[in-house]
């Protein structure tokens, strides 16, 4: 289009040049020219150029409003045609076949080649040949007067048939050869340009798709909420493929139906038509088997379950890819287009790539959802067990304690002994249940709800040690507590939990230390921590058992031989509690010599800011 503007600009110069050249020939070269018609020619050129200029701006405005409403080529044809007429006019008044202006036709054939289709160029070349030949013939035969530029040629040539024939022959051949060369060059350039354009378009397209693929890959890790994953996938696929709509259908629990899980670009009403029933839908079955399928025209495809509904919604073609997880098909992803036969192999490859990413994301989200449901079930189970399992055992113990305590009347020694054995078993069961509950609630995060406060370690340890005074002395053990002089050795914890942790350690020490042994509990400051040591001269822990000590249900073989009942959970719970409050636990032991458990807990003083305490207690 801009070449035409350029041509109009050139023509102003041409018009002015025609006027100037005439003046030059007449005044300066002193040639006898038909000045009036030549000046008229120049003015005529300027006049129709003005008209063309006006037409052109009119056309530009129209094109801006409705693209494709008129053909710029037609204006180019008018331009060249007008130029041809102007040229033949000027040629006629400057000597016809003798005129040097004839050469200017060559410019125009080149311009025509730039602006017009090849066929038009040859038509114009023929037209020029016809005009020039016609003019020459008319002048030769005297049908038109011969108006030479007197003084330009020594003899008039327009009456020499040989010259005329030669001149016309070379004029015509030059014109056509030039037309051929120019059109071929232009065709080559146009082809190159088209290639570059196509390449640019493809690159832009590819880059948009790469971006979309990147996004769909990101979805895989961005969220674990299933609905969120599905919605993002349909949305981003619709945008990337530039289609009307995109939907994802997932297999239901029975694996016989495909239910809409997310859609972008289609109304919810459209999907109320129902599920895709696999038994009635060969297309869906084939897609689930791993094929990617086109429907090029919904109205002419009997594989569709709802062709009329689709057509009503304005959908004409669809492309469907399978969503396949690690354990089989999950569902399908489908894109919809308003036009018939819209999809290409490229689209299919792209949709398949999106589906592959999507499948992973969907499967992850599904797995996460399952886990969350399991977690919720576990939470409920723990609460249920708390009441349903714990309370009957508690009642059994209460009844037994009432009996062994003599509250229900005197017992024979045999009865007493048997009831005490029953009570010990019930006690063990109680401990086991408590330990299991503790572990279960710890794993399900119920612990985080327990209130923490400043705990005075000296007071706590004194209280626990006091609890074991009687059993220790009954067993003939020395139980010693060594406390620092400081008044407030404080840590931040839930007092009951800490009690439980320390109780386990002292209980073990007393349990596994033979008569005459020594159990020492000592507390001392260590940097910004409190170090609590539980030292005994007991049976010790075999070297090979040490790495397993904090494993659930593990009990060292010598401990098992010593005391039959034991849950193997006490140390696990102790370590859980200690680490929950930012501490750590260590064990040193020699077989048959004794064991020392050392606990470090971060010291706490009330001047510390509250938030720091909170992070400490959760780390």
């Amino acid at each position, binding site marked *: 289009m801009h070449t035409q503007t350029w041509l109009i600009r050139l023509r102003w110069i041409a018009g002015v040049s025609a006027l100037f050249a005439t003046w030059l020939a007449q005044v300066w070269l002193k040639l006898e020219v038909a000045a009036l018609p030549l000046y008229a020619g120049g003015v005529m050129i300027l006049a129709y150029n003005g008209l063309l200029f006006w037409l052109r701006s009119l056309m530009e405005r129209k094109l801006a409003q409705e693209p494709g409403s008129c053909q710029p080529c037609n204006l180019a044809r008018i331009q060249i045609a007008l130029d041809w007429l102007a040229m033949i006019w000027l040629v006629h008044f400057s000597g016809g076949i003798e005129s040097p202006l004839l050469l200017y036709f060559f410019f125009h054939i080149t311009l025509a080649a730039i602006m017009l289709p090849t066929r038009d160029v040859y038509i114009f070349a023929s037209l020029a040949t016809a005009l020039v030949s016609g003019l020459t013939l008319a002048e030769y035969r005297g049908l038109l007067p011969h108006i030479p530029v007197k003084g330009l040629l020594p003899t008039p040539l327009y009456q020499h048939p040989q010259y005329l024939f030669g001149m016309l022959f070379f004029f015509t051949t030059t014109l056509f050869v030039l037309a051929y060369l120019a059109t071929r060059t232009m065709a080559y350039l146009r082809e190159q340009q088209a290639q570059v354009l196509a390449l640019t378009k493809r690159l832009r397209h590819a880059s948009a798709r790469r971006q979309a693929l990147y996004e769909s890959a990101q979805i895989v890790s961005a969220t674990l909420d299933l609905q969120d994953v599905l919605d993002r996938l349909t949305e981003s696929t619709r945008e990337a493929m530039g289609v009307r709509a995109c939907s994802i259908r997932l297999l239901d629990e029975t694996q016989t139906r495909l239910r809409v899980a997310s859609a972008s670009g289609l109304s919810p009403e459209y999907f109320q038509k129902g599920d895709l029933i696999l038994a009635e839908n060969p297309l869906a079955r084939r897609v689930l088997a791993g094929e990617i399928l086109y429907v090029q025209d919904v109205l002419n495809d009997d594989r569709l379950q709802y062709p009329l509904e689709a057509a009503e919604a304005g959908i004409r073609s669809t492309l469907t890819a399978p969503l396949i997880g690690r354990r089989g098909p999950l569902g399908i992803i489908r894109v919809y287009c308003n036009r018939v036969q819209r999809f290409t192999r490229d689209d299919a490859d792209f949709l398949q790539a999106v589906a592959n990413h999507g499948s992973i994301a969907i499967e992850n989200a599904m797995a996460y959802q399952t886990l969350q449901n399991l977690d919720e079930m576990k939470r409920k189970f723990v609460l249920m067990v708390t009441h349903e399992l714990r309370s009957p055992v508690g009642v059994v113990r209460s009844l037994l304690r009432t009996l062994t*305590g003599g509250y229900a009347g005197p017992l024979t020694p045999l009865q007493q002994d048997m009831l005490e054995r029953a009570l010990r078993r019930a006690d063990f069961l109680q401990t086991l249940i408590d330990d299991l509950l503790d572990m279960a609630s710890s794993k399900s995060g119920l612990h985080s709800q327990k209130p923490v406060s400043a705990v005075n370690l000296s007071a706590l340890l004194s209280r626990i040690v006091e609890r074991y005074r009687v059993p220790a002395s009954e067993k003939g053990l020395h139980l010693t507590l060594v406390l620092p002089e400081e008044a407030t050795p404080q840590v931040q914890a839930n007092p009951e939990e800490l009690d439980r942790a320390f109780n386990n350690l002292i209980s073990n020490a007393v349990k596994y230390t033979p008569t005459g042994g020594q159990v020492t509990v000592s507390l001392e400051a260590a940097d910004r921590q409190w170090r609590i040591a539980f030292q005994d001269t007991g049976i010790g822990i075999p070297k090979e058992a040490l790495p397993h000590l904090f494993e659930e249900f593990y009990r060292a073989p010598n401990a098992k031989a010593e005391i039959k009942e034991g849950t193997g959970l006490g140390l696990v719970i102790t370590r859980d509690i200690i680490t929950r409050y930012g501490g750590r636990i260590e064990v040193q032991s020699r077989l048959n010599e004794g064991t020392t458990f050392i606990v470090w807990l971060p010291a706490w003083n009330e001047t510390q800011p509250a938030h720091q305490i909170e992070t400490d207690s959760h780390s």
Partner: protein
Amino acid sequence: MEPKIILLVDDDADLVLANRLVLESAGYQVESAANGQEGLQKMRERKPALVLMDVMMASPLEGYYITQQIAEDPELRAIPIIMVSSIASTQYAESFPTDQYLNIVEFISKPIEPEKLLERVKLYVG
């Protein structure tokens, strides 16, 4: 001297039996109720010196709702209540409103050792 009356409100008859034997051996008179409403009624009839109230009966917080009704009754409001629960006491105390007007003197978690039961009861009743 008239023996002091202790009211056990618990839907678990076995537990009531065990606690009754323990308390009776120490010379208390024991009354029992299997649910909150019955407990409220027994309180009005017998004016016990102390109530041991199970938190979780037919409904999870039945014991708690009954203590609220007790607090609204000027004749019963002064009777001390020990709340008994199968869930660890502090965990429970957390979710329990500590309104001043509720005469809950203590939370005890099940199972209650006979010695401890007697010790606590003696503390509040004498």
